[in-house]
């Protein structure tokens, strides 16, 4: 029994996709395009790293005060261009069924809503009621979290004693107190080592701020000798050589 269908109706293509041009075979991207794109991507990577280095140079060496959003804006703009190139050419969104692009855009829309509305809320919290600001405590309250091996009690009056209760306060404060108690160094010596570990070579004790970036070189060599080995947990092992310069 053969159907008496109108000539335009194709049972294998009931929705007429062929006429709309939805099925146009697989697109084969030319090698020249792919090579061009990878070269552009490598170039953009160099550019974004270069821009960041230049910004660091300008703020640290030249002492310019650049707006804090500039660095982020440049880096993210280049990242968006790079991402778009990969999506359009390597992932072939430019040549494929627009449905895939629509899916991607919907996904980006959800992403933007999530980021945008959450960011707006976190940014505006506590404008009317001050207590709402206190939800985030810088460094944390400690309290309900038991720090590993926490037996140090700091009475915040210069005395550090060992006590079997948990340390309440930021983890970083606890680590500092523990380090000073274990190595027996002075506050000044701690600060010197701290500056070395954090690349603050001029010993002003200032790290990068939103407006001023310092040069970066990755992990500080100072940490090689200064970092306490908590896996073994013996204090003497972590004793640093005070005169050793940063290892790079």
């Amino acid at each position: 029994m053969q159907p008496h269908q109108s000539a335009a109706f194709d049972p294998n293509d009931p929705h007429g996709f062929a006429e709309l041009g939805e099925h146009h075979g697989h697109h084969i991207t030319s090698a020249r395009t792919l090579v061009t794109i990878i070269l552009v991507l490598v170039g953009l990577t160099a550019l974004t790293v270069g821009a960041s280095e230049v910004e660091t140079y300008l703020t640290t060496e030249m002492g310019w005060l650049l707006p804090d959003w500039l660095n982020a804006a440049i880096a993210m703009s280049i990242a968006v261009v790079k991402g778009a190139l990969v999506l359009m050419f390597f992932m072939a969104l430019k040549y494929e069924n627009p449905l895939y692009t629509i899916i991607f855009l919907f996904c980006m829309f959800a992403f933007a809503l999530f980021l945008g509305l959450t960011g707006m809320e976190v940014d505006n919290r506590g404008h009317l009621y001050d207590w709402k600001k206190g939800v985030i405590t810088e460094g944390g309250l400690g309290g309900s979290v038991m720090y590993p091996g926490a037996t140090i009690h700091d009475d915040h009056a210069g005395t550090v004693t060992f006590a079997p209760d948990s340390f309440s306060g930021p983890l970083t404060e606890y680590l500092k107190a523990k380090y000073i108690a274990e190595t027996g160094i002075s506050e000044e010596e701690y600060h010197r080592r701290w500056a070395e570990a954090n690349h603050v070579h001029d010993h002003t004790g200032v790290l990068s701020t939103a407006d001023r970036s310092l040069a970066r070189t990755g992990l500080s060599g100072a940490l090689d000798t200064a970092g306490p080995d908590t896996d073994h947990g013996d204090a003497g092992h972590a004793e640093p050589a005070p005169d050793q310069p940063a290892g790079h």
Partner: protein
Amino acid sequence: MTTIDTHSKRQPGWKRYAFANHFRNAEDEFDACKLGFWLFLATEILLFAGLFCAYAMYRVKFPEAFAAGSHHLDIRWGGLNTLVLLVSSFTVAMSIRCAQLDNQKWLRINLVITILCAFMFFFIKLTFEYIPKWSHGIRPGVLYSNPFAGHPQEPVWWSVYYGATGIHALHVLIGASLLLWCLYRSLRYKAYGPTHYTMLENSGLYWHLVDVIWIFLFPLLYLIH
């Protein structure tokens, strides 16, 4: 829906491929698989959205902590890893092109380069970034044990760093496994050719997505002060 008819060994795998019988034709099946995979990629992007959101919120609240933490990252290793992923993304696109043109030899060579790049990325990440930091006590959350924190909030930065790069590295491993599987099937069956390369195409898409996410993670973690 990869079903290989193993009865006739003379033909390469991609010619012997028979599509699942609830589709009308192989073209429909290919489109369906690709549509499904794009939806899956959307879920992957939104999985990372949570980490990007956590990053953004704490960076706005505590820029100093993020700058202090970011200073312990080495831009050279991050940059090298970016290049490694970009090259691998290029080679996987080339291997798909080779499949479309039935160039079996270069399909495999490109796949091998891609997989090598994947493991190189993972090796660099592990050897030059994770292990030195971890041994210095620069760890996420309460495991953080470096006494010289630049900012009280720095452990949170490391949580975000390890969370984002860790889940990304997991995706690198998954992508490499998918591509290894493709390589095996290509060597064993000549499974991919002009009329059938669904698995290779989708693995390639996954790999590109891993690349795209790193393209954003790199400046966010390494470059922004």
